[in-house]
């Protein structure tokens, strides 16, 4: 048979012995299948282990009652509330900023020093360990501004974590909008901003929305950035007082707030409750299930919205 040279090595690509080449190919294929299947089994075993161990805690009692001190049977109600509240605050802060920056990068930015600086900043921000973001929050919001460990400081730290991801998602979704849409709008005499606001953003919404939900799911489990910003304690909350200015109100943004992820970490080291193991099992299961739900929601909404916009 004709031998053909491999450009790099100069050796024939198919060496003399056909049989060994095909045998090696089959062995390699087998190994790759084994690796892929092993990887997936590992991940499923991991998720299965967590959900199986935490199954006893997946009830309304565990999810709504406050933790107990030195006795068994406490829940994670306030922690769960704190996680959700922080998530809403952080999204409210980071979505307008991230989408704005995404619009800038996709629509206004030209190849310039400024654009390169933004790009580099985004890469830096997304590579920073979350504990560094938490330490920055500690420095600015707690030490310098003197807010104390608070929901607000935690929300700011999460906003910093979110910002690069939302900007990237928004930029990509905007860039994926067909150019004909923009050209048609401009040709009809619309201004650039009208075009962005009325056509490009609505068309990019499915992509942005599923990206935002995915990110939100991730920050639900964030702990390192919150240890020194939102704090590791949860004052007693009065769930009938919804005035954000009262100290015991769950909505007060200046109270310390331990989230579910932080509690999962802390409950082991403290040893203040006898059933720390069950609590950690339960909250790990709640965390993982929530992240999965967010993921499915992002997938479903992204697809559903895309279908609707195509139908129009």
């Amino acid at each position, binding site marked *: 048979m004709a031998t053909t040279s491999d450009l790099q090595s100069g050796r024939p690509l198919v060496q003399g012995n056909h049989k060994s*080449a*095909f045998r*090696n*190919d089959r*062995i*390699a*294929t087998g190994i*790759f299948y084994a*690796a*892929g299947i*092993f*990887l997936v089994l590992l*991940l499923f075993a*991991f*998720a299965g282990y*967590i959900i199986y161990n935490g199954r006893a805690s997946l009830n309304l009692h565990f999810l709504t009652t406050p933790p107990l001190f030195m006795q068994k049977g406490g829940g994670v109600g306030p922690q769960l509330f704190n996680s959700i509240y922080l998530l809403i605050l952080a999204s409210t802060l980071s979505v307008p900023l*991230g*989408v*704005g*920056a995404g619009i*800038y990068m996709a629509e*206004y930015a030209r190849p310039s020093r400024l654009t390169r600086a*933004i790009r580099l900043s985004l*890469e830096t*921000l*997304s*590579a*920073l*360990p*979350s*504990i*560094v973001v938490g*330490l*920055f929050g*500690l*420095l600015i919001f707690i*030490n310098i501004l003197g807010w104390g460990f608070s929901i607000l400081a935690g929300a700011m730290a999460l906003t*910093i974590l979110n*910002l690069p*991801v939302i900007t990237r998602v928004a930029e990509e979704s905007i860039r994926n909008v067909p150019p004909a849409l923009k050209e048609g709008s*401009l040709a009809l*005499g*619309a*201004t*650039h*901003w009208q075009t962005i606001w009325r056509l490009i953003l609505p068309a990019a919404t499915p992509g942005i929305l599923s990206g935002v939900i995915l990110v939100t799911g991730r920050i639900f*489990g964030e*702990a*390192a950035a919150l*240890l020194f910003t939102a704090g*590791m304690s949860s004052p007693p909350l009065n769930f009938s007082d919804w005035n954000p200015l009262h100290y015991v109100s769950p909505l007060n943004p200046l109270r310390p707030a331990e989230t579910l992820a932080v509690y*999962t*970490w802390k409950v*082991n080291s403290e040893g203040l409750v006898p059933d720390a193991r069950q609590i950690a*099992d339960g909250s*790990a299961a709640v*965390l993982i299930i929530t*992240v*999965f739900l*967010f993921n499915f929601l992002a997938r479903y909404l992204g697809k559903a919205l895309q279908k609707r916009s195509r139908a129009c």
Partner: protein
Amino acid sequence: MPDLTPSGQSILRSARGSSHFLRETLGRYYATLCGDLIILLTVTMVAFITVKGLAAFTGPHPLSPLKFLFSSHWQPDADPGEGGPQFGTLAFILGSVSVSGLAVLLAAPLAVAASILISVIAPRAGENFFRPVLELFTGIPSVVYGWVGLSLLVPFIRNQFGGLGFSLLAGGLVLALMILPTITTLATDALQNLPDSLLEGSYALGATRWQTIHRILLPAARPRILIGVTLGMTRAFGEALAVQMVIGNSVRLPDSLLNPMSTITSVITMDMGNTVKGSAWNNALWSMSLLLLAITFGFIVIIKRLGPQDTKNGNHF
């Protein structure tokens, strides 16, 4: 202004033209402001942590930078009678390097092998099954990885190999599992972004699939795969809580897979909340934060050197 976009003035002569122009300007300003804010945020963060991190090396009792980096003598609360507090972080630096290095050594081969399956051998199952599963798992909180390490892995290591169970091995395994989905996704992207002509040309020349993979596709995708591996390493290096839960947190050079030790992040996590603001101990912790930041920058430089980052799927932090 040489601009392809209409300025609004010339085209819209209606009575509402001026309000459109105003919105046009405001919209543009808002978007630009958001872009600038990102630079401002990054610069502020780096500046503040740098200033705070350098505080330990100045002042009345300055810490020697050489001792800080190259001594493994860490006794932050020693009395002046015992020679005063010592802030050598070598043990933690080596601890971070060895635990994240071990994680990458364990994760990268499996991740690359799986990415070949997903992108070359079974692309349809890859797109419909493997990719969604991997995406699902990149979002799992690190405390959950840490908790599984603590409740399952640590007792297992204790029973099988003896010792405390809290060990370099436990940390490396937990981090490996944590960065597996990230590296696999990025390596898959790298292989899928190769031009189809490489694969087709190689097949047309009579090469088998394995020959095509290891002589053509892997070398061509290597820079991008290495970017994925480096990003995984960056994530492992900066991870704090999952590591802290299983590594044992004792001040000790990483001398064995089965011994407990500490990392930069685990020491910061443990002590930052318990030390008095402005004390030498607290300042040393801020210097370690600066060191962590500097090492992260080192990783970013390596990634930039390896080539342009994929803008399609970006990185997975």
